[in-house]
């Protein structure tokens, strides 16, 4: 019962977050100067046409009415029409076919980074303070510190120029997947590796590991049965940040490799100043990351028996 209550509460918080994002996005969009709605025809339009465009978009209504219409539209999945980039086309029909591409790439890189990141972390623990550990640390620092654009470009350059892998994405050509997925995974690999290493180190020094050793378990048994399993649990918490990593990464990478996904679309929409399209894509990404956060918390709940679902009124 308490589990259900907890889950409902957690979902409720996600919904509030989403609503707040909705409001923020709406308000920010109202801050945009009206000129951005005329497209590139600004100077040629007469004052009356300009007014007509604004009226048509509902921008002349009082703000609360606009907000109400905006909510109504969202509820009916009517996400508005593209202004410039695909002028007149409903936003949903632009987005829908692209979501599949982005999800496929995102999912592929999440799986790859999880596997590679954790393996790297374990390798680093096993070779603590020896060469592989040091190299791993160097890698983590590099990936974490340096702007991702720099190594994305480096990968693209090395891959296409020196290894002659096709640069532009082709759906049926598997090799064109390699570079974008690799780029997309690097950030998460580094973060998984770092946390795996840190959590495992914490566990190695824990009292219960000492007890396990005193029990007569070999180091290998301790590693597998206790340390690894326990280091995994807090990893569930890193799932959301990994999803967010992947989302931000996909923005660059899809346009770098001309993948027809939503990330590339957002950049094109921004460059074309397509307000409605930008608004909806931002909402889309917010939904994704809110869902990621939710997923992380729920995963944590499944993995860790200690999480209690009643708020403790406990000691100070």
């Amino acid at each position, binding site marked *: 019962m308490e589990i259900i209550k907890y889950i409902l509460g957690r979902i409720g918080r996600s919904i509030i977050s989403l609503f707040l994002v909705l409001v923020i996005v709406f308000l*920010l969009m109202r801050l945009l100067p009206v000129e951005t709605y005329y497209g590139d025809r600004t100077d040629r339009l007469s004052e009356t046409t300009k007014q007509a465009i604004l009226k048509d978009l509902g921008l002349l209504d009082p703000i609360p009415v606009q907000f109400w219409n905006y909510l109504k539209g969202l509820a009916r999945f009517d996400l508005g029409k593209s202004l410039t980039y695909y002028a007149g086309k409903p936003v949903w029909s632009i987005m829908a076919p692209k979501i599949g591409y982005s999800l496929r790439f995102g999912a592929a890189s999440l799986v790859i980074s999880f596997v590679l990141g954790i393996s790297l972390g374990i390798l680093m623990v096993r070779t603590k303070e020896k060469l592989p550990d040091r190299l791993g640390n160097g890698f983590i620092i590099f990936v974490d510190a340096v702007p991702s654009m720099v190594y994305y470009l480096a990968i693209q350059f090395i891959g296409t120029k020196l290894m002659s892998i096709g640069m532009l994405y082709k759906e049926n050509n598997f090799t064109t997947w390699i570079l974008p997925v690799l780029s997309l995974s690097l950030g998460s690999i580094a973060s998984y590796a770092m946390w795996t290493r840190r959590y495992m180190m914490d566990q190695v020094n824990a009292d219960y590991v000492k007890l396990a050793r005193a029990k007569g378990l070999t180091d290998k048994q301790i590693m597998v049965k206790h340390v690894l399993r326990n280091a995994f649990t807090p990893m569930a918490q890193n799932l959301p940040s990994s999803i967010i990593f992947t989302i931000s990464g996909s923005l660059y990478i899809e346009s770098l490799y001309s993948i027809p996904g939503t990330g590339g679309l*957002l950049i094109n929409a921004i460059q074309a100043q397509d307000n409605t399209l930008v608004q909806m894509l*931002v909402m889309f990404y*917010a939904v994704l990351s809110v869902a990621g956060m939710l997923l992380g918390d729920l995963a944590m709940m499944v993995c860790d028996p200690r999480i209690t679902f009643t708020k403790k009124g406990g000691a100070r």
Partner: protein
Amino acid sequence: MSKVMTKMNKMSDEELFKFIEFDSSRAESTAYSGYSYWKSTFKVFMSRRSTRLTLYFLILLLLFTLLQPYFPGQKSPTEIFINPETGRQLRSHPPGAEFWFGTNTIGQDLWARIWSGTRTTLLIAIVSVTSSTVIGIVIGALWGYVRALDRVFTEIYNVINNIPTTVLRMLITYVLRPSIGTLIFAMCLTNWVGMAKWIRNLIIIIRDREYNLASRCLGTPTRRVIVKNLLPQIVSVVMLDVALSIPGVIGSEVFLTYIGLGLPVETPSLGNLIDEGRRVMMNLSQTYQLVFPAVVVALITIAFYSLGNKFADASDPRNHV
């Protein structure tokens, strides 16, 4: 030891088995080490050669960036050079004695542009990180120290934390006009949240330690409790967060420029330079236009990042002698 032995041999049994006077200072003696937290932190921090080198390198780099225009023989970052032979712009002139890092696609000196860009980017990074740190500390301190506010702030945090910062920054810069101010504002608005959370967690841990309760029993005013008891514990975390946020902000600037929300091309910044370089990188003879700014960005960010980590290690009292 031998000295002791000879002394013993000289003494008679009677002397050896005589009671000696009890000396309370001998019993109370502790090894005095003259330890001070900050001195030790500094000593541990500076004890590693690689850390020292990184630190000197970063200081030199920052000084050079600041003073570069005043060195002799420096060119203007915005001047378009003309090829005297053709009378046209000196486009993509390879690096050489005249143009150390070559020129870009419209004939500007890349060397001068890189340092000018570094100044801009560091300005954005340092100003936005400093101000968001101040905001973060104030809000985090309130959040952690005032019990009544905890619930409210936590809920607000949970909501804000759900929105990816990249998307938020993008939206803010999209709505506002691209300028240095806009970028600083956007970074600042998204950066303080993490800082506040850090500070809050720390203060919650420290707040109920007995020495703070003692201060309350002694009637110490809250302001002095914060200054004397809380802040010294927080400084190292703040330093770490600042050092790690700077690479983050630089990365964001590069990203925003790439998607077309960065500074106008007239103002060189590291983001701009990388973006310019990206456009021509596939042309092998012009790849240098990406490599030079990319290397500078990488050096700066890695230096900040690793120094921050080293400082955090050094400020952990467990690592002190």
